[in-house]
């Protein structure tokens, strides 16, 4: 018999809880208010119980097993399949991430449960609102009548809302047999070291597709220098090899929260916004008036960046000289 609780699959990597987990707890709270259930965090791990301490959840279900120390899709899927089928919650939230999406779709097929992806927030009556088409379209769906799986993207809630000073009750759940796994972690490969850590920089000048080619990155670098900041990039720029992966902002890159985030020629796809949406002041420069980046930016302009950026650099240099 289905209950009204909202489960959140906690995402953690190498001993650290990902921000998205707290953000999901906040989302789950909003949904739970509509359904009238509890918010229950689901933590899979090995010696990871302490991670539960600051979670704003009513309860934490903790599954302990050496095979769950680090994420592998097979082990997570098997563990969660049993747990969800047994408990029948109203909804299960996964992060729309490298970990969450590996698990959610497979479980939807295995348990024959509906799945709604890229959910950003919930309406007051508990309908998921999803962001699609590179952030250009929002879609509001009905929450199906059965246990529903959802993947969550950032933008609707803040991680702080999902944290609490009071440690929730932790209930240990037996792990299923995790032998003969078809997917195993061989090793982690660290990102290139030695570069600046963009997540600690207060001023970031970030470039996207609109920069057109590698040489043009120089104008962004000059502006960053004039501002006393560093350059970063969105996925297409890094994919082209124009900037190193250590400068990548977004879902697959770093998450940054600078005081100023200058987005040059960045369209603002959700994958990028995920990495910079919480910056204090976002200033977007993009010739496309309809670019979704203007929906997260505080200030925007459609002046061509190739005109504006050099002009701005020069003015900044003048000001700093005086």
């Amino acid at each position: 018999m289905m209950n009204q609780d909202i489960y959140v699959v906690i995402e953690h990597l190498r001993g650290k809880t990902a921000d998205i987990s707290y953000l999901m707890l906040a989302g789950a709270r909003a949904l739970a208010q509509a359904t009238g259930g509890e918010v229950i965090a689901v933590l899979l791990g090995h010696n990871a119980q302490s991670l539960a301490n600051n979670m704003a959840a009513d309860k934490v279900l903790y599954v302990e097993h050496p095979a769950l120390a680090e994420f592998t899709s097979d082990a997570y899927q098997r563990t969660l399949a049993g747990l969800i089928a047994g408990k029948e919650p109203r909804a299960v939230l996964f992060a729309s991430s490298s970990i969450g999406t590996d698990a959610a779709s497979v479980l939807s097929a295995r348990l024959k449960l509906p799945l709604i992806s890229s959910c950003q927030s919930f309406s007051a009556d508990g309908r998921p609102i999803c962001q699609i088409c590179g952030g250009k379209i929002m879609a509001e769906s009905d929450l199906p009548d059965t246990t529903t799986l959802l993947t969550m993207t950032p933008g609707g809630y803040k991680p702080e809302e999902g944290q609490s000073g009071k440690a929730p009750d932790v209930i240990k759940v037996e792990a299923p047999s995790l032998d003969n796994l078809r997917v195993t972690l061989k090793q982690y490969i660290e990102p290139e070291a030695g570069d600046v850590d963009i997540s600690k920089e207060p001023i970031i000048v970030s470039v996207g597709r609109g920069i057109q080619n590698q040489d043009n990155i120089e104008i962004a670098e000059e502006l960053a220098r004039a501002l006393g900041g560093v350059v970063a990039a969105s996925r297409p720029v890094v994919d082209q090899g124009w900037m190193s992966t250590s400068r990548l902002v977004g879902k697959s890159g770093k998450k940054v929260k600078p005081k100023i985030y200058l987005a040059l020629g960045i369209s603002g796809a959700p994958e990028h916004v995920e990495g910079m949406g919480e910056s204090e002041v976002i200033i977007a420069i993009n010739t496309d008036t309809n670019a979704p980046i203007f929906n997260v930016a505080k200030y925007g302009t459609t002046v061509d960046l190739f005109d504006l950026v050099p002009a701005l650099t020069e003015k900044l240099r003048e000001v700093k000289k005086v």
Partner: protein
Amino acid sequence: MNVVALFKLVPDLVEELEIDQSGTALNTDFLRLIINELDDHAIEQAILLKERSGARMTVIGSDAEGADDVLYTAVAKGADQLIKLMGDPNAVINNHAMARATAIVLKELQPDLILTGVQAHNDLDGSIGPLVAEYLGMPYVGYVSGVNVQNGRIVVRKEYPGGLIAEMEVDLPAVVGIQSAEQPPRYVTVNKVRQAMKTAAIEERPLPALDVSGGAAIRRMFKPESATRAKMIEGSTEEVTARLLDIFKEIGAL
């Protein structure tokens, strides 16, 4: 080795998107479809595998405007077999249905490895790759940016935030969701594609009756509200420069 690349066509975001009268779907009058960018990477990764290890490569997509182009382009790049799933293109928005139908065709082909884009921008009910994997009982790993075959298994590079890479070993047969190929998708000339049109054959397979369960029922679609929209700074380059300088001062960046 049998490698299959799956692709789907998605609305081209270069064109302005409009919502139709029902308010629950995109207006298809102006809609122009393009291959999902990550599926293009999946095809490239499959070609690279074929070049490295002599795999046989099949490309599968469902019938929609532009699907033939994608298929012929794939042959021009090196694909061996092309399959187009014929059926109601409007149903394609439901990934569960597509994955179930595709799985039936895939069973016949007995692939060792299935590659597809890890996601598409119009996914509303999960992504094709993991769904197909489960319907076929294969393991799945997504967010992958490199695949190597080693001793009958594959080693994939799975991407995590912050540039961290996890090397995972996966039993075959398996499904892999590609985030990016080891090199950007290659260019093929118009002539090569035209040649492919003359020589290659697209196998058309009927889509079985679609079972759309497991997807989302959209109640309404809308464009993001403008309430959160940026304050737009208008004017000449000089004026915008001056205003930005003021903003920098206000924030205390100067």
